């Protein structure tokens, strides 16, 4: 993975590196608060994918995963202090990535096997992750 070529808007938009490369967890695990496993809907056996969630790479399957964690689809990524929000990136109908909102205009992402960063939402668009296709939110735990 090359940040410059895979995410052409990232350098100009600016980002903060939060932790170094790590092959043991990916964006989906990171977005659900786990750093102990690689969560991936994949036809190959061996990876983790929650039971009762369709095991395919569709945006709808990933939406269902977040719904099982209390999220519901919402219209946008506007910051709402009382909600956690996630953004699903996709190319066509297949999900490519999920990012977690951390504060107004800033999101956190684990980039595949690479680093995890904080960034603006559109900084990861226009490259291998495609475009943001869906937002979900849930009330923050009290």
């Amino acid at each position, binding site marked *: 993975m090359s940040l410059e070529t895979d995410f052409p808007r990232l350098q100009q938009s600016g980002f903060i590196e939060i932790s170094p490369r790590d092959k*043991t967890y990916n964006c989906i695990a990171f977005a659900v608060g786990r750093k102990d*496993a*690689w*969560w991936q809907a*994949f036809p*190959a*056996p*061996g990876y983790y*994918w929650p039971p009762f969630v369709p095991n395919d790479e569709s945006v709808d399957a990933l939406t269902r995963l977040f719904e099982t964690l209390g999220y519901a689809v919402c219209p946008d990524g506007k910051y709402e202090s009382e909600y956690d929000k996630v953004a699903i990136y996709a190319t066509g109908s297949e999900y490519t990535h999920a990012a977690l909102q951390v504060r107004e205009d800033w999101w956190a992402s684990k980039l595949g096997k690479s680093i995890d960063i904080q960034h603006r939402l559109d900084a990861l668009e226009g490259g291998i992750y495609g475009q943001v296709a869906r937002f979900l939110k849930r009330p923050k735990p009290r």
Partner: protein
Amino acid sequence: MDPAYQQIIGMGPAVLPLLLDELAREPDHWFWALWAITGSDPVPSESRGKVGEMAQAWLKWGQEHGYLAEKHVA
């Protein structure tokens, strides 16, 4: 899928010792290739997604099937 990764899968069982040696050296995401070549799924349910444990399961499989020396298995 990365074309280089596809090429590795296309090499078939001959590449298994190399993949398993690489996995022993540094656990990485060779699992798709290993599954595609062998059709096997040695990763127990409790280890799914845990890269180190997935690697160990494949190394044990490699040893049992004669693709890997015993020294690699923890």
